[in-house]
Each structure stands twice: as structure tokens, then as C-alpha cells.
């Protein structure tokens, strides 16, 4: 097992290095001139000014040199300076990432906590009301567009019933908790500030439901299908022939097998939640990475784009590592 993890880690490092190269090349080869995007028309027509500006940002060096500089800076944790915000990209990311991390994690937890039991119940009581409910939920979750669901929920619970708070991470009059991790729930709990905790939690409800909807649907559906498939296996009949209680058969024999495909799906779903929250963040004025990425993309802010893409790539790689390791833990056949 340790050897298995070690070999996965080596692989991860190689992949990450490859990712830096791809990201660098992509960012530098897209058509579009960052100079023109950043400078006004007037400044861009001034040749001297443009040349000086290019030299300042290292855009006049040959490609390979720029890549080496990029790598060297990277090794110091330096992702460069954002052209748009004029701040280190790492600083920007540190400011925006926790909001996304919090939202994505809560959404992920929601889809697992609801989706897996729902899928199990649906499979165990096939064709009962709970199965129909599970199918309805997953259908709605997978097929309703994010913006539509967000507006409906906002209209009903915020606009209509007024039981949900509005957009943002906390009330506009409230103050964020002292920053330790940047995750408001965690920080307020650490500070013992339960009023803020409640406020932050309330603000998370609608956006996390919206963000979780598709994942929840997928996880419910996959759990149900995977459970149903495992129930057909011979070892389940053997377990019944042993005289075990059905609860024990479901939890002790079927579930450990049925979870294996869910690990893959869950890992990828989490990665998707982390990186695919742009729409939800925009609608709920969520100051997260998704909006930051969007802004950087439209302004061709290359250092920011590269930095974020790299972080996303590394997050994907780490999640894949976690998937591989959990696979090995769940399925003894993976590691000899």
C-alpha cells in the first residue's frame, strides 16, 4: 500500500509538471494581445509605451525563456502578478478561493448525505414511493438549468416567503469573522461567534442547493444503479442463504461493493463543483474563484489565468489521487 501511494505521488508530480507546460503554452498561444486588452486605445497606439509595457511584464522574451521564468517563480510559490488587479495572483486566489471552497464543500456534502441514502433506499425498495421520489429528484436535479433553479429559489424563498437571506456570504451589515482559514463557517465557529455562524450558514443554503442539484441527481442515480447491480451478484444470494438480516446484507455486503463506482463519480463531481460554480457565484454575488476566473478570462489577464488553471489542474490531480487511494482501500483487488 505505501508503495502504491508513493508511485501515485510520483505520477502526480510528473503530471503537474506537464500541466504547467500545457497551461503556459495555451495561455501564450491564444490569439488576442494582452497589451491591447489592458491598455486603452490611446496608450496602445504609443509604440514606446507599448514596448516598455511589454518589457515590464516580460512579454518580449522568447517563449522558452518565459516558461523557465514561470517555472522558477512557481517554485517559490510565485504565480506572478495579475495584470488586472496589480496584485500577486496567489494573493488574489487566497482571497477568492475560500468562498468557493466553502460553497463547493457544503454542496458536495449535501449531495453525498442526501444522494447516497436516497439511492440506497430507492434500490432496496425498488418501485416504491421512495424510488419514484428519488428518480424525480435526480431528474429535476440533472435537468434543470442552474440559473432557472437559482431564480425560482430566490423568488420563492427570498422574494416571496422571505425566509432565506439574499445574495452574498453574510448580511451586508454583518462583519466577516476574523480570518483564519477564510471559510466563514469554520472561522466563526473558531471565534465562538455563533450569530455570524448562523448568518453564514443561512446564506449558504440556497446557493449550495442550486450548486448541488446536478451532483445530487447524479449521485442518487449512480448509487441506485450501482446498488441494483450489486444486488444481482451471487454473493448476495450467499449472504441471504447464511441467514443474515437484510439490513446487514445491504450495509455489510452490498454497499461496500456499490460504493466503488461512486468514489470515482464523487471525486470528479467535487472537482466540478470547485471549478464550475461561475454561474451560481454570479447569481448569488458570491465572491469566489469562479467570478475571478471569469473576469481574468475576459480581460486576458494571463498571469491570473495561468495561476488559476494551474491550481485547478493540481486540485484535479490531488482529487484523482484521493480517488485512487480510496479505490485501493475499498477494493482489495486494486493493490496486490
Amino acid at each position: 500500500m505505501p508503495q502504491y501511494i508513493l508511485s501515485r505521488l510520483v505520477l502526480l508530480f510528473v503530471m503537474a509538471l506537464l500541466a504547467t507546460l500545457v497551461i503556459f503554452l495555451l495561455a501564450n498561444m491564444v490569439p488576442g494581445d494582452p497589451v491591447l486588452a489592458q491598455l486603452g486605445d490611446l496608450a496602445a497606439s504609443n509604440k514606446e509605451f507599448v514596448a516598455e509595457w511589454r518589457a515590464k511584464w516580460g512579454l518580449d522574451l522568447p517563449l522558452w525563456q518565459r516558461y523557465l521564468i514561470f517555472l522558477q517563480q512557481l517554485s517559490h510559490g510565485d504565480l506572478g502578478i495579475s495584470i488586472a488587479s496589480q496584485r500577486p495572483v496567489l494573493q488574489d486566489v487566497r482571497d477568492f478561493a475560500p468562498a468557493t471552497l466553502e460553497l463547493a464543500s457544503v454542496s458536495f456534502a449535501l449531495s453525498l448525505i442526501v444522494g447516497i441514502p436516497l439511492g440506497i433506499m430507492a434500490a432496496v425498495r425498488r418501485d416504491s414511493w421512495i424510488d419514484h421520489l428519488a428518480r424525480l429528484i435526480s431528474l429535476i436535479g440533472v435537468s434543470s438549468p442552474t440559473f432557472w433553479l437559482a431564480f425560482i429559489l430566490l423568488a420563492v424563498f427570498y422574494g416571496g416567503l422571505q425566509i432565506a437571506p439574499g445574495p452574498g456570504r453574510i448580511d451586508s451589515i454583518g462583519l466577516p469573522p476574523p480570518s483564519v482559514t477564510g471559510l466563514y463557517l469554520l472561522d466563526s465557529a473558531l471565534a465562538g461567534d455563533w450569530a455570524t455562524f448562523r448568518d453564514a450558514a443561512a446564506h449558504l443554503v440556497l446557493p449550495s442547493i442550486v450548486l448541488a442539484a446536478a451532483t445530487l441527481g447524479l449521485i442518487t442515480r449512480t448509487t441506485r444503479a450501482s446498488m441494483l447491480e450489486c444486488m444481482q451478484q451471487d454473493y448476495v444470494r450467499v449472504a441471504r442463504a447464511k441467514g443474515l438480516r437484510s439490513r446487514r446484507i445491504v450495509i455489510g455486503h452490498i454497499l461496500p461493493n456499490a460504493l466503488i463506482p461512486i468514489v470515482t463519480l464523487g471525486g470528479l463531481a467535487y472537482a466540478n463543483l470547485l471549478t464550475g460554480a461561475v454561474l451560481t457565484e454570479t447569481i448569488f454575488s458570491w465572491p469566489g474563484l469562479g467570478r475571478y476566473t471569469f473576469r481574468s478570462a475576459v480581460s486576458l489577464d494571463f498571469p491570473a489565468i495561468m495561476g488559476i488553471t494551474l491550481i485547478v489542474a493540481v486540485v484535479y490531480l490531488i482529487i484523482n489521487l484521493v480517488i485512487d487511494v480510496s479505490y485501493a482501500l475499498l477494493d482489495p483487488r486494486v493493490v496486490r
Partner: protein
Amino acid sequence: MSAQNTGPGPILDVRDLRTQFFTDAGVVRAVDGVTFTVDAGETVGIVGESGSGKSVTALSLMRLLDEPSRIVGGEVRFRGADVLAMSEDELRAIRGDGIAMVFQDPMTSLNPVLRIARQLVEIMQAHGRFDGEQARARAISLLGRMGITAPQRAIRSYPHQFSGGMRQRVMLAMGFANEPALLIADEPTTALDVTIQAQILDLMVELNRDFGAAIILISHALGVIASVCRRVLVMYAGEVVEEGPTEQVLASPRHPYTWALINAVPRIDRHLPGTRRLTTIEGAPPDPLAMPSGCRFAARCPFRISKCDEHPPLDEVAPGRKARCWVTKGNEALPQASPPPPTTATIRPKSEKSATEPLLSVRGLVKHFPLRRDGLFAPRKVVHAVDGVDLDVEAGETVGLVGESGCGKSTFARLVVRIHEPTAGRIRFAGHDIAQASASAIRPLRRRLQMVFQDPYASLNPRMRVAEILSEPLRFHGLTGTSAETTARVDELLVSVGLNPKMATRFPHEFSGGQRQRISIARALALNPDFIVADEPISSLDVNIQAQVINLLVDLQEKFQLTYLFIAHDLAVVRHICDRLVVFYLGKVVEIAPAEDLFMRPLHPYTRYLISAVPIPDADAERRRKRLPLVGEPPSAVDPPSGCRFRTRCPIAQDICADVPPPLTPHRTGHLAACHFAGQF
């Protein structure tokens, strides 16, 4: 404990059991009025072909059926209590405790993600017989009793670390964990090698004796039943058609279906040289959705009389013997079987030793399969699948390859037709070297060198109609010009394998297993080959269908002068149809001999064990002969033993066997063996 419950009367009493499948197409009466009893400590066999209802009967006894099958009538009394009327809790108390069950496929019967220990311990804990520590200790001792070496270590393993035979031992340990009064074993050895099957069957006999548990053994093979069971039930189309003491039923059956089952199986202990055809009955079991109102076997019965339009009852024909037949109502014996005459009345020309080159000549053939590395820098290991094999096959011969699974016989077959590329060695076919030849160089030879695969379900493309399957090779090799010619050839092929040309428009799933294997054979024949490699062509078929396919292969050989390389694990079949046999062990040939000579005077100890392991469908013969117990399982082909590869299981191995690999040397005419002490065992 429960096993001591040997009170008066049977422990299991089944009356008029009816189990039906409620399918979209209609109601299938899978078990249709089955009545029998099992006494304490008794061994009862249930035999029948697939679809006869024997497995459904077994599952019904413990109410383990899934939707859409339901028990619709009858009574199952276990120690007097009505199983069919029990609540879920009462039922659970019996399952795994009073009645235990062992299933067919040990590879899928154990939960792959749980350790052996957990799976063994939970059955004891579930019934409150032992607490955790006791259960674990008992699990270890049971594993040891079942013949698993180092049970303390084995119990911490996962199922995938065990071979099929070992897993079936674990299943048996599980079955006997709570000392049940009744063990139901559903085809427990069908998925195993013949040597391992012999071990498991012997173990079951011992366990029956030592634990006193009654055993219901379900099998399609009469030989398996004969070696364990005192009494046998024969099932056909959902009914019991014959019941009686095993030796009497096998020696002189009272139902034509039993008669057909017995005669369709070649016997390893009895073979008349020159007779290669087997007695078969035509047709297939009746459509379960529309059972005939009369005798269900009548349509296939060679002895039918007019009375057979009425449904016969299962009546006693002699003390302890029952049969469901009008013909044998007065306990008349059925006549001795004689195989049907060949369709073409040609005498098979004895292949005269020609001075010319053999059709196939293999020298020093080696195939190693690389394994995945254990770690990033670990050395790459290889599986020594075939490790230096020499073999000549003359035109017109039938050569059989036998050996346990993993011995390299299938790999060898695939090398010969160049599905695999050899690691080293020479293969000459019809004067051409094909071992290293390019795909395009082999292509013209492929016409003459065809293969029939084991699984008729997997080897036909489900999206292609039969006509397309058969015409594809014709068009690819440009054998037929016009589409009219192609159609004519396809029709001709179907006729030659005994199928109706009208079936050409159908898809493979519309055929039974036996019919599909006929299509596979037709496809191999399409190009008028000289040489056919058949890899276990009958092992997935019912015995009667096996006999039909064997007869077909024999007829085709005579008609088209074919040469066969025939791979099978069933030695009786191999003896029946092959001229020469090649025995494989762990990638090496250990013995080559004319079929008769090999069975009469085997020289290699392994060959003797193999022959001895085959169960004989004759209770008398089974009791008389002493089975040689081959212990253990073949070692890993990744790291084969030095010297003679069989030495680790050989009772006469000496020091020399570990140092010097024995060469394959001639001992008699055409009889070669690779053993330092050939013939001394």
C-alpha cells in the same frame, strides 16, 4: 447439535412443490409438482439438463428465489416445520443454520471486498452459536479441515487471492460452520478442474460421514452424482421423471430420458476403439411456456407409444424406484443403446504415415505474457504460459490437448492459429513458417486454418445475422463472386451442420447454445479449411447437446477430411474422439501418446492422476476403483518449479527431479513421456 436430530421420518419432506416464473411472455412452470424426501444423513442427487428445474428446486427449498419467480404451491417441511409458511425471522433462523447451501460459481459466491475471516465468522455469529473469538478459532479449524494450508494466514486473505478450488473449500467451510442437518450443493464442482473436482467430491463424502449432514447434490453430470449420492432424482421439464438408488438407476434406467442422459456421455473406463459416435436424442426440451399435455419427453423419446399422449404419473415401478413413464410401467428395462449410424457411410481412412511433412509442426514453442510491474522500479515478471513445446500433427488426425486450467493448452491453440504471437519457437503449417510471419503473409493460410471457440455466446457477434456471420469470411477471402453464390454457400454450410437454411436471417440470440456452437462450426467450415482448432467446443453445453456436437464434428471430419486439434478438460470425451493425446502441465508437455495407449498404460504420474480424477457415471465402478488423490493445486506459472514442474505434487519425486528437467523421450511407439521415472508410479 442439529445434526444429531435423527428422529423418525425424513428431515426434509417436499410435496408437490410448484415454482413459477412470471415473465412478460407468460408463466413458466419451472418446478411443476416435485415430491421427494431426504432422510437424516442421506445423500441425494438431482440431475437434469439446464432448464430442467433442478436449481430452482434447490433455491425454493430455502425460499431464496428472486422476483419474478414465486412458489405457488406445495409443501416443504424441514424437521416437520413448514418452510413455505414461515415468517422472515423463522426462515432466517433456518438459513445457514439448519440448511446450508453451496453454490455453483466459487469465483462470484464470495464477496470480493470482504476478508475470508469476516465472511466465515458472520454466519456463526448471525445464528448466535459462537461469539467473535470462538467463531474465529472455529473458522480457522474449519478451513484446515477443508484442506486449506496455513489457515491462520488464509483467513486474513481476500477471495481474489484464492483459486477457484480453494474458494469452493471456503464455501464448504461456510456451509458446515453451524453443523447443518442438510447441505444443498448446487453444481459445486462444475466450474472446477477435474482434479480439483475429485478433491471436492471426496471432501463432500468425508464431510457427510463425519458431520452426519444430509446432502442434496445438484449436477448435470451423472458421474459427479454417482461418486457422492446413494439416491438420485432425475428431472426433466420441471418434473421428477425418475427416482431410485443411484447404482440401480445408472445401471438400468426406467425412464427414456435417463437412458438418453447415460448414453450421451462417453465413459472413460469403457471404450470401443473405432466407435466415435455417441447416442443422442433429437430435439430440445419442450417450450416451458407451452408444455405438452402428455408426457413431456414424448417428442424426443425413441420408445414412445400411443399412450404417451396422456401425462404419466410418477409411480413406483419397484421397491424404492419410481418412474414417470408408460413404457416402463411394469418395471421393464430399456434396451441397450447403440449409436446411430453415421450420416455419410464412409470409413475413416486411417492416416497412413506419409513420408511428407506433417500438416502442422511445432518446435520449441514459447509464449510468455509479461505482468504489470509491482512497483515503479520492480522487475517485470512473466507468466510462462507455454514453455518449449514440440508437436507434430499429421493430416487427418485428431489430436487432443488436455490438462488443468492454466496449463497452457488454450494459449498453445491460440499460438497455432496465430491469435497470439509466439515469444520464441517455430510453427510450420503446410510447409510455411508462420511463427513470425506478418499478418498479410498468414492471411492466405488462414483459409486453411480455422478455430472454433469455447463460448458460443461470446464468439458470435450479436449484431450480425447468421447469414452475415457466415458470408463475411467468404467475401473477405473472395471465395464467392456473386451474392447468389454466397447465399447458396451459406445455405449449404447451415445444412452441413444440421441447421435449417431458413435460419440464416436470424440473429445469434435466437438460438440455443448448441445451435450457436453449430453456427460457430459452420463459420469455421466456410473457407474449406484443412485444419480446425477447437478450444473446448462442448464444455458449455448440456450432455445431450455435447453428444450431438461431437457426432457432428466426427461426421464433418470424415466428410471433409479435416484435421482437428481438440482442446478439452473432459478426458472421457477426448478419449472418445481423439487419435492421439497431448498432456500439458504448467506450460510443458508431459506425455504424448495414442489415445488408447495413454488410457491403458499412462507413463507420467500426472496423467494417471488426471485419468483417475474423472468420475464415472456408474456407482458400482465408482465404489470399486480407488481414486488417486492428487493433492494441491498447480504452482504459479510466474515462478514455475525448477527441474520437473510436476515434482511439487509428485509422489515419486527424487532429488534429480528438482535439478534436471526431464526431456520428452519415446518409451513405446509414438508414446513419449517427460519423466525421470516414467511408468514407475
